[in-house]
C-alpha cells in the first residue's frame, strides 16, 4: 500500500494526530484499561454485596448486569459501523458492484458478494470495509479497531460507497485512518457476536489474514 501519497481529505482534520501503528497500539491499551475500569468495580461491588449481605443479592445482580451490559454496548457500537446504511440507490447497485469487483482480486470479490464487506490488506493490519465504516484487525488478529467513515455523497449505491473508501484507503492508509472517527477498540470476538450473521465470515477471514 502506498505511503507516499497524502489523502486530500486530511486538510479537513488538521488538528488530528496521524493514526499510525503507534497510535493504534496506544489507543488499544487505553480502551483495554477503560474497559477494566468500568467493569471491575461493578463486579467487585456485586460480589462484596452478596458476601456481606445475601439479602442484597438483587442489587448485586444489577451491578453485575452493568458489568456485562456496558461492554456489550461498546462492542455493539463498534459492530454498527459496518451495518448497511440508508438511504441507498438500489437501481445503480449492479453497475456499482461491477466497478467494485474490478478493483478486487478473485477471493476478495467472492467474499464481498457473500458478506458485503471488502477485505484489504494494509500495513496497519487487515481492513474490512463496509458502506459506512471500516474494521481494522491488528497484526496477530487479537485486537481490532472500528472506524466510522463514509463518502460525503449519501445517495450512492452501497458498492460505490465501499469503492470510495477502498480507493481512499489505497491512496493513504494512515490518512484514511486519521480522517475516520475511531469508534471502538477491543477483542474481535466481542465485535463478531454483534455483527450481522452474513458479515461474520469476513471477520473470520480478516483474522486469519492478520494472524
Amino acid at each position, binding site marked *: 500500500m502506498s505511503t507516499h501519497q497524502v489523502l486530500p481529505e486530511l486538510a479537513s482534520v488538521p488538528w488530528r494526530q496521524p493514526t499510525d501503528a503507534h497510535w493504534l497500539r496506544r489507543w488499544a491499551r487505553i480502551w483495554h484499561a477503560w474497559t477494566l475500569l468500568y467493569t471491575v468495580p461493578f463486579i467487585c461491588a456485586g460480589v462484596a454485596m452478596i458476601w456481606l449481605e445475601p439479602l442484597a443479592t438483587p442489587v448485586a445482580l444489577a451491578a453485575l448486569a452493568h458489568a456485562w451490559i456496558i461492554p456489550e454496548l461498546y462492542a455493539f457500537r463498534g459492530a454498527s459501523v459496518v451495518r448497511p446504511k440508508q438511504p441507498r440507490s438500489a437501481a445503480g447497485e*449492479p*453497475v456499482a458492484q461491477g*466497478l467494485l469487483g474490478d478493483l478486487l482480486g478473485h477471493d476478495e470479490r467472492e467474499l464481498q458478494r457473500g458478506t458485503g464487506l471488502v477485505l484489504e490488506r494494509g500495513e496497519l493490519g487487515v481492513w474490512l470495509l463496509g458502506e459506512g465504516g471500516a474494521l481494522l484487525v491488528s497484526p496477530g488478529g487479537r485486537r481490532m479497531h472500528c472506524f466510522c*467513515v463514509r*463518502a460525503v455523497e449519501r445517495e450512492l449505491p452501497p458498492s460505490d460507497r465501499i*469503492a*470510495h473508501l477502498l*480507493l481512499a484507503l489505497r491512496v493513504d492508509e494512515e490518512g484514511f485512518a486519521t480522517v475516520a472517527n475511531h469508534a471502538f477498540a477491543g477483542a474481535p470476538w466481542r465485535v463478531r457476536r454483534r455483527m450481522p450473521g452474513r458479515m461474520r465470515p469476513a471477520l473470520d477471514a480478516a483474522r486469519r489474514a492478520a494472524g
Partner: protein
Amino acid sequence: MDQTGHTTLAEWTAADDAAFEAALREFGDQRGLGYIGTVPEGPGKATHVRELPRDAELVIMRRPIAGG
C-alpha cells in the same frame, strides 16, 4: 462514481489530442464539483492525481470521505 453506479465521463488515447483535451475539460469540471481524481494501480495501491495523466488506463473521480 455517482448514483447510477458510475458514469463514463470521457475516453481518450495518448495519441488523440482532441479527445484528451475534452477529457481535461471534464476532469477540471469534476474537480470543480468536488470530485477527487484517483488512479487505481493494481492490488492495494492507488494514486491521487491533481492533473489528468495522459497515459493512465483509468481515472476514477470519487467524492471525498469523512468521519461518520
